[in-house]
């Protein structure tokens, strides 16, 4: 047996908690420690804050706790105080972190010009300006003040908004207010129907 192996063996034996526990040290505390257990850290030790959240998938409404360090989410788990999920999450809810931190997420605007065969990257502000122009132009060209029989319509049938049912209530509210109340769009729909 080489000296180095002997040293390692001796070290491992000293680190092995069982003999210490057998000779009478408090078996649940110091005696149970090992180099490995001393190295383990609480999973959320690095978190500098936690926020309350709701699972973004189905409508059960499981509460989640989102832990973050700096501007990085480091963990998402079920909120044990929720009367709905009591800390549990299903396979989808447990995938929330994988959704948020996914490397395939879109992080910039992609633009496809008419008749083009590829995406181009464009600045967000440019896209916003262009979309506003297109909305205005389409609305201007298609706005109907009155129907042929004289009935007031004040609508455009040429622009549609189709949302997912995972939008926040506040988002839905601004959509309906702007698209319906402001622009006169009537094709305003949501996955809630289908």
């Amino acid at each position, binding site marked *: 047996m080489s000296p180095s192996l002997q040293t390692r063996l001796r070290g491992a034996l000293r680190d092995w908690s069982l003999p210490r526990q057998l000779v009478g040290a408090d078996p649940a505390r110091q005696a149970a420690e090992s180099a490995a257990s001393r190295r383990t850290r609480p999973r959320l030790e690095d978190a500098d804050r936690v926020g309350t959240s709701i699972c973004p998938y189905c409508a059960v409404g499981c509460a989640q706790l989102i832990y973050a360090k700096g501007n990085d989410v480091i963990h998402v788990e079920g909120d044990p105080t929720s009367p709905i999920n009591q800390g549990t999450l299903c396979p989808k809810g447990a995938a929330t972190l994988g959704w948020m931190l996914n490397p395939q997420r879109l992080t910039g605007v992609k633009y496809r010009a008419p008749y083009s065969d590829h995406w181009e990257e464009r600045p967000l502000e440019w896209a916003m300006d262009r979309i506003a122009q297109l909305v205005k132009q389409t609305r201007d060209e298609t706005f109907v003040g009155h129907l042929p029989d004289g009935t007031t319509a004040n609508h*455009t049938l040429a622009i549609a908004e189709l949302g997912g049912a995972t939008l926040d209530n506040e988002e839905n509210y601004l959509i309906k207010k702007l698209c319906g109340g402001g622009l006169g769009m009537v094709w305003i729909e949501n996955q809630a129907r289908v």
Partner: protein
Amino acid sequence: MPSLGASFGRGAATTAQWDVTNADCVVIMGSNMAENHPIAFRFVMQAKEKGATIIHVDPRFTRTSALADLYAPLRAGSDIAFLGGLISYILERDLWFKEYALNYTNLATVVEDDFKDASQLDGLFSGWDAESRAYRVDSWQYQGEAVPSSSAEQQAQTTEPYGEKLKRPSDGPPPSDPSLQHPNCVYQILRRHYAAYTPEMVERVTGCPKETFVKVAEAVARNSGRERTTAWCYAVGWTHHTTGVQMIRACAIIQALLGNIGRPGGGILALRGHSSIQGSTDIPTLYNLLPGYLPQPSAQRSHRTFKDYLEAEQVPTGWWANFPKYAVSLLRAWYGEGASPDNEWGYQWLPKIVGDHSQLPMMLAIGDGLIRGLLLIGQNPVVGGHNSHLIRKGLPNLDWMVVREIFENETASYWYRSPEVERGEIRPDQIKTEIFLMPASLAGEKEGTFTNTHRLVQWHDRVVDPPGECRSDLWFFYHLGRRLTALHADSDDPKDEPIKNLSWEYPVFGAHVEPSAEAVLKEINGYTWPDRRQVADYQELKDDGTTACGCWIYSGVFPAEDHNQARSRVPDAPGGPGTHLGWGFAWPSNRRILYNRASADPDGQPWSERKRYVWWDAEQDKWVGRDDPDFVADKPPDYTPDWSKRPTGMDALDGRSPFIMIADGKSSLFVPAGLKDGPLPTHYEPVESPARNPLYGQQDNPVAKKWERPDNPYHAVGDPRYPYVITTYRLTEHHAGGIPTRLVPSTAELQPEGFAEIPPELAREKGIANLDWVVISTARGEIVTRALVTERLRPLEIDGRRIYQIGMPWHFGWHGYATGDIANTLSAIVGDPNTSIHEGKAFTCDLRKRAVSSQLSGDAGADG
């Protein structure tokens, strides 16, 4: 949900999920709850541990069935035959809860003499107009009076306005016969209508053995009454049919007859599939509604002026008499100072609808070139829409399209990656569309509220900033609105008045100039005008312009300047009331069980100690209990309206009428107004069915929304080319159109590719082995997928014939780690007449083994 609205007054789950633990019996039908709402299913299991009987009725034997005490198979789309059988069984054997149903439902109400039901007219009701393919509803009314729709969202397709008759409920209560002998009282009509729905007929139509059906009926009846309650849970297995609304209606009739509404352990739990489906209906991005279930003005109704609109939509008796307060407050919230009594509060700026502008016809209108620009916000219609090939062929007709998403989805990439591109049917160099694919942010990166499946509004924090140029949809619409306001600032064109007058000032914060969701939620809650003090609840709203409110039913969610009730996280301790009133906000008024006045008997006392919930406290002169009482707080049980004074609003409802949103305060077993396909649920076959309707000459729903055209063909009844029933469904590990899970490694690994479930008997006939590639086809298209040969889908004997059913999850597409052909390439654009919800749960198809085994080749790329 017009079904729950028409039956009880509000279109939402009547109970809280956790209350299911109080049930003595739970029936799950139209839902695979264990797999699709697994966390909510824990409450079903907790009820089972306490001794409850669990029943699952479904075409597929799933993990829900495996954990149930009793599983009843049935053919996809035959649910009303099953439920109608239950109604008949309960009535004919006198198993209903008499004191409850006689007092709290319209069972004794007498209907017009000339009403004829489907048993007399071979599947139609009186009032059928073959030319317009619609019903005149005059003969469905209560004798001598017109009944307004129970909820403003439901507008009957009537050929004449109610006009003067509308005011009649103020003259006195509807005529009734408590002895139930009158031949046209609802009780007798129900008995006649469902007389043919015998256990034998149930077996013939649904394929469920009659012995199994009787076991279900006995269990449900045994677990209902003073001492016991039964809860029902359903999901899109009921809504995705051309008879979907009436399926839920049939359940509502059963629950009201058995006295299971408004009571602990009872109710109907609508299980929604997306984090804010309920919220998207309450604060609707739906074409026919304004926030809080106010109808969108229509050019086809008497909505010419604001006065006309109020007259047409205000229900004189019951809670909806408050309609003008909610409408004026909404207009004040939208148009601020621009709204005044002189301009009808800006009413004319609201666009008038001219027809069905829902998602199904929207897809046709895109293909037809009527719609030129599309804002697509977190939806993936190429996968989740119907007749996907038609959608993909139609999208190139758009001038521009904005897709806001977390990942690139199939709708954003159809122009270079779809099977149509591979086949050369679509070429990028011929597509004019300008497409913007914009990165969105998730809960945790943005603040706001979701409304869950039981009306619970819960706040989520912004914990971190979203990555890169990801922005919330709140940000997108706020800044789009800012730009449009600026672009129109100098316009004096009358058409630009609404955008110029739109109240669009919200505080912003941070480097991204993010609008404050709290400020928006405060507006949704409502405040006084012009001093902007938060209102505590909707009872403070006025019709004189002194209050603004974005959605009246949410009033109370932000009742004071620094009080965001949606963010409240205080659960009840173990052994506490168990209603968790400190956790979030449930609309209306933080109420957890709706119609809970019905948890007490007509005299206001609990039906039983075991089911005590809300009751009348004579000493305090008010309703008390574990929840917010769903009633006028101090109206005694013995209150009777003084009809000589022509009372209106809540004064016209007596102290024994728990369904305050309905004009007569009673649950509508029979719905005189508000539904387009009849006052009672009737079994019609799915539009595509292998079988003739065994009950009536009328084959399918006579008013089903059909858009039959060359690119959206339907299969004829019993078409031998498409002999199999197919039903689509979801998996535990995937979400809807699949984008949020197909691209996430953990979920993609658990369910890595598409498949179809095929019964072993059918597989043998076709020479298909497990994991073989198969081709499934309809007249709309065909797809290639893997066979999962399983006994979970049993062949059923229907009217003496063996019928096979195939099942297929619809999440898959070409993006992500978990891929597969798009199931909705097979489905058709066809819908329920009341909701325009598609029929994805029951249609017909063909199946064959693919000749050459190979990799996925894209739909209709099959060469077998």
